[in-house]
């Protein structure tokens, strides 16, 4: 579904990603883990068209997307839920969700889609008219996820959804990702919470200094000495 080959990119003259290859098959739940500053966010931004690649190719559903603008990529069914939620804080919850359905294809169906999103996040429905900034951290993450689903994506790429949340809320976030996966949505999850991530995803990549250091099934990675020492503190 998503194929990345030989991808290099960076900011100004500073290279961040080096000749990176990554693949996500339809229906998979793939994770990308790595330390702070490894380049995870940069990779997701490059996939969704916020940053242009220097070289290499990104293919989504058989179509080259590395030359497209972000607004055209979301229209193809790839939704990026960004790091730090990035809500429209001066707009209401309902309006934030509507913005998620902005592509013409999904705008017409936004009311039905919103019902589906509210069924996933009942607390959002109770507060539909409130400004996004009045929500708690956990609710804001739910809204960011709900908004990202409003474009009815086939692939969701999501950046550190558990960051800054209380443990109970973190489990809730992972549960929701699990149920979205069961509904048939393909997921590429970026996380620093390695333990819970390897327990949830099918397969994972370990990113170190802009390069893929290790990859494999989550069961395999949990047993690897490198992962145990560097990421699980064992």
């Amino acid at each position: 579904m998503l194929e990345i080959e030989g991808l290099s990119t960076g900011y100004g003259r500073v290279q961040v990603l080096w000749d990176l290859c990554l693949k996500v098959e339809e229906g998979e739940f793939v994770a990308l883990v790595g330390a702070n500053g490894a380049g995870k966010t940069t990779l997701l931004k490059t996939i969704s068209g916020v940053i242009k690649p220097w070289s290499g190719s990104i293919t989504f559903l058989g179509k080259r997307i590395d030359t497209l603008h972000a607004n055209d990529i979301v229209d193809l069914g790839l939704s990026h839920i960004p790091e730090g939620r990035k809500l429209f804080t001066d707009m209401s919850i309902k309006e934030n969700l509507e913005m998620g359905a902005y592509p013409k294809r999904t705008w017409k169906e936004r009311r039905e889609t919103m019902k589906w999103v509210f069924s996933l996040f009942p607390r959002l429905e109770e507060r539909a008219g409130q400004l996004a900034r009045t929500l708690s951290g956990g609710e804001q993450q739910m809204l960011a996820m709900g908004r990202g689903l409003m474009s009815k994506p086939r692939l969701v790429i999501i950046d550190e959804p558990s960051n800054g949340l209380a443990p109970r809320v973190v489990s809730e976030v992972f549960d929701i990702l699990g149920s979205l996966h069961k509904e048939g949505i393909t997921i590429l999850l970026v996380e620093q919470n390695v333990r819970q991530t390897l327990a949830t995803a099918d397969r994972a990549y370990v990113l170190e200094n802009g390069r893929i250091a290790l990859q494999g099934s989550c069961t395999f990675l949990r047993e690897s000495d490198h992962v145990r020492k560097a990421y699980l503190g064992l």
Partner: protein
Amino acid sequence: MVVIRDIIITGLLLGGIFALVSVGLSLQYGVGRVMNVAHGEFIMIGSFVTFWLFGSTIHLDPLVSILITAPLTFVIGWILHATLFRRLMDTSPTLDVFEGKSMLASFGLLYVVQNIARIIWGSQNYQVMYLNRTVTGAQIPLNRLVALGVVIVIGVVFYIFLARTRMGKAIRASSQDPTTAGLMGVNINSVLAVCFGLGVAMAGIAGSLLSTLYAIQTSMGLQYTVIAMIVVVLGGLGSVSGAMIGGVVLGIVSQIVTYFQPTWTLIAYYLVFILLLLVRPKGIMGK
């Protein structure tokens, strides 16, 4: 008491015009980060198109002429953004650099537009005589009341546009976070061009109305640019509702000063401006 009432009424009437003059600039700066010092030139264009249509054989009613000046100035603004400002943005490494460049470019625009107008209309004063009798019982000329009515209608329509429509929501989202709006599927370039076009159209409409209130001349633009800049800073950079309130505040201040000493109005504008920057640097509605 009668004096105070009259000052407030005339201040409101003037403030409404100031608000209309300023909302466009606020929109251009708030969403697009364009410091458009040529803003007043589009007011001048609005005035002269209205004057020209009024004086032509069709003798078009100045209010009706808004139906021509608004779309005309919108298209001018849209094209300016889609060509000039968008290119500047693409070649600027940061938004701050772009802001500086946009100001210089619009400065150039100011001279180009003003000199073309001067070639056509010269530098003398013109007047559109329209509804300048007073309403019975009050001292207020009818054209001022009509102008305020139009300003209110435009304010309400614009508010509904921003609050309810797909494009309006995209504009608000883009002004808060353009990158994330892009992730939602918003084509930022087209939103910015629409915003700039709307800003220029507001200037054009203000120009049409102003031509019925005051004498117009091809050099009239700059004074309105200055007023708009003061109001926009007063109300908070980029805040549309702030520009509305700022416009009314400045209108009333202007009338109070005019009552005591008309020659001091411009000085008073700048004093209010400096005082506000010291006391509330983010403006009335700033956070």
